[in-house]
């Protein structure tokens, strides 16, 4: 099953976007967005994974012949996580403001009120 991680990433993306489209609550929508974004973690990490590879932490106890998983994509995943955290923080703050102003967190009703 060498394609399974890629299929998982695709599934997470599709299911997250499905949740965003059909969402009836802004908080639910934000969480669905994080699910969609989780697909990028799976994709990045599985691109850099090496079967039997060690964590890329090179200490004196690691044998010189050992192979490592790719540290570059792991660093990229770290960036990805931080960006997701910031996006969620700002979106949730906007959700609170929207709820205060319109008295509802249903995205469909928000559109009707502002239009």
């Amino acid at each position, binding site marked *: *099953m060498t394609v399974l991680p890629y*299929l998982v990433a695709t599934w997470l993306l599709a299911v997250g976007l499905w949740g965003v*489209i059909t969402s009836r609550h802004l908080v639910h929508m934000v969480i669905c967005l994080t699910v969609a974004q989780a697909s990028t973690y799976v994709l990045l990490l599985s691109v850099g994974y*090496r079967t039997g590879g060690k964590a890329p*932490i090179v200490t004196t106890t690691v044998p010189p012949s050992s*192979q*490592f998983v790719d540290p570059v994509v792991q*660093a990229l995943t770290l*960036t990805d996580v931080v960006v997701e955290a910031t996006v969620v923080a700002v979106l949730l*703050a906007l959700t609170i403001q929207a709820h205060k102003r319109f008295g509802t967190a249903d995205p469909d009703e928000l559109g009707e009120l502002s239009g």
Partner: protein
Amino acid sequence: MRPRTVIAALVLTALAGLVVWSVGDLTPFGTPSGDADAVARRLVRDRHVANTVNGVTYDLRALDTLGEELILFLAGLGSAVLLRHGRGEEVEEERGDEEAPPRTADLLRVAGALLVGPVVVLGVYVVVHGHLGPGGGFQGGVMLAAGLLLVYAAGQVVALERVEPTALVEVAESSGALAYALVAVGGLVFGGAALFNFLPLGTTGDLLSAGTIPVLSVAVGVEVTGATALILTEFLDQTLLRGGE
């Protein structure tokens, strides 16, 4: 709702098909195409950093991390501005009814008080050992912010209103971002390039080694602690405001 669901299902199926088609050409799982070993060993040889993930984050991609840190800084600022908007009115509304705030369960207070110390120590450990083992500024910073949140959970409203921590976490956030920028300028001054390593590299595996990497890690740790704590306290503040309704 119905037509939207149908369109969404069709579009997402097409999208999933496209994604599967495009990732089909990627390297088979378990055999990365890049030369990960060479990158890892070269980082250890040239930069004396044991944790090569942080070697990438704070050295090879240090400029990207500067941008990433500033994104976090601005997000903290942005959500604070958004959440503080209109706070003044609500506070006055609430002054009318002097109801006692809901009491925290004793068990939560005790558990919170017991956990604060270990969580903070672990957070500091993770921040300062980022170049030696798993962890680093981002990870440890979130732990430290969680430790701060435990103080609120244990003491709740009393501590929150008396300590008024927002100014402090704002200072932490700004000084962390500033420290990172200063190290970047330091590289410019001493080495001719921004974020150039101008500190002695030391022995790989020592706490004081790897040049600017642990310094940047600590700067990021302070910044992430401040930003996360700022965001969490602003949301907590909203909860407390709404608690009286």
